[in-house]
């Protein structure tokens, strides 16, 4: 569905140039949830910006349904890492969620129900008339998530969406993402630096290296489809996977020998 072909991106040129992405190759299939993990500053946000069509990569290409992406395609949405900067402080919570729906020309009732459902899903019913400035950071982030959910994209890119949300709400929202994926057979690319989260949510985990960034490995997550915050995380398979991801991030080269890596 979405493919990155030898994607590379360098910021600036000459002496000040910074090679953020060196060579990224992977494909995301329809209905799949792929999580992307990597060390801080390795270019995860840069990657999502090129995948979304917001920014042209300096090398390689991205294809969506086989067509090369040159601008943001229809049916794609993104939740930005800088959620507070991505909300419109002059619009109420409800109007922020309504904003992207303007162009979809939905019937009135559907517009209403989509907004209400999205706000309910992130637990913000009753805050609809407030302005973002009246909400805490975690609540603002949930508004940004609700906005993307109400838009019902085919593919949703999420850039560390739960970074500023408390542990309990975070687990609820993780389960919400899984539910939304099921219900609308949404394809999701989920950037996170939380290793448990990356394994718990994903069908596959893409592990990135330090800059210049490449794909270290793509791990399959053969956990049962129906996931549960407690029992799934107790499975030996889950524990093995999260250990492997952690090792891959820390020592990408000797990751194939887990024992040696653990001793070092």
């Amino acid at each position, binding site marked *: 569905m979405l493919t990155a072909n030898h994607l590379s991106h360098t910021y600036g040129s000459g002496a000040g140039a910074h090679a953020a992405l060196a060579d990224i190759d992977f494909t995301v299939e329809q209905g799949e949830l792929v999580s992307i993990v990597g060390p801080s500053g390795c270019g995860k946000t840069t990657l999502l910006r090129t995948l979304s069509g917001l920014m042209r990569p300096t090398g390689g290409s991205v294809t969506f349904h086989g067509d090369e992406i040159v601008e943001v395609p229809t049916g794609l949405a993104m939740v930005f890492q800088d959620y507070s900067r991505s909300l419109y402080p002059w619009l109420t919570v409800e109007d922020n969620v309504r904003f992207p729906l303007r162009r979809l020309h939905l019937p009135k009732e559907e517009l209403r129900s989509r907004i209400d459902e999205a706000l309910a899903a992130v637990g913000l019913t009753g805050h609809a008339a*407030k302005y973002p400035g009246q909400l805490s950071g975690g609540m603002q982030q949930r508004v940004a998530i609700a906005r993307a959910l109400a838009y019902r994209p085919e593919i949703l890119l999420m850039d560390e969406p739960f970074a500023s949300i408390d542990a309990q709400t975070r687990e609820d929202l993780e389960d919400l993402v899984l539910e939304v994926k099921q219900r609308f057979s949404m394809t999701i690319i989920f950037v996170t630096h939380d290793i448990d989260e990356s394994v718990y949510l994903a069908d596959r985990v893409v592990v990135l290296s330090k800059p210049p960034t490449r794909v270290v490995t793509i791990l399959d997550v053969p956990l049962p489809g129906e996931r549960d915050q407690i029992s799934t995380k107790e499975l030996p398979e889950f524990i093995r996977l999260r250990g492997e991801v952690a090792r891959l991030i820390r020592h990408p080269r000797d990751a194939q020998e887990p024992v040696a890596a653990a001793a070092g």
Partner: protein
Amino acid sequence: MSTVSGRTDSKAALPGAATRRSGPMLRWLGTRGPREFVLRWVVLFALFIGWELAAKAAESPYFPPPSEFAARAAELWLPADGTWLTEATANDVLPSLARMFGGLALGSLVAVVLGVAIGLSRRLGDYVDPLIQFSRAIPPPALIPIFLVLFDRGALMRVLLIAFGAMWPVLLNTIEGVRSVDVIKYETASIFRIGFADKLVRIVLPGAAQKVFAGLRTSLALGLILMVISEMVASTGGIGFHIVQAQRSFQILDMWAGILLLGVLGYLLNLVLTVVERRVLAWHRTTNREIA
């Protein structure tokens, strides 16, 4: 191992703390509460009493006591004898206000349109910056002779002079306001495939609104000044004309009454602008607050 970086959002529920304050907006005439109200008005009142006493003691024909020229102003311009519009109001105040609002509206409109264009395009900004810096440095009254030649002595010349002189604060502030809008707000709109016109109306303008209002406030004061000055030259009506005319014919009370009228008008206009701004920027008082 795995990292968990969840912050708690215990600050979450503070229902509508900020919105509720917008209610008694006018109750204290633009001040924030009874205390400030008393402080502000008592000082002003005391000043007038001092002035009154001093003027009475001095008995100078050029400095009449405020009570006298205030009474004269009321006689000239306050509604009386069943008519809303006294002759003096129709001759002096209304034409003046019409010219000033005309000039301000025109100047602000041009300034906002130009400001948005310049604010959005770095390149355009680089091209026109020297021109702007030069033009705004010219004291507008110095242009009266040219404007008189170009547009004759009618209302148009005065409206254009006010427009030209008062547009700079709005222009400069609009440019700054537009440039201050966070690029992520545009990118968010791009992600949802929002078109250019919608971005303009729903992101650029609201994002720059606070600065635009700051510019309008300065422009309003400039507009009033230019209105008076333009009416003091080659004119047959308006508040400025009234003041000059009164001075020339030694009607000192009328002269002072005109000055008082200008003060009151300036105050009221600013008050109106403040109220409009608070309405339009109601959302703004919700940010930069302890809850943000």
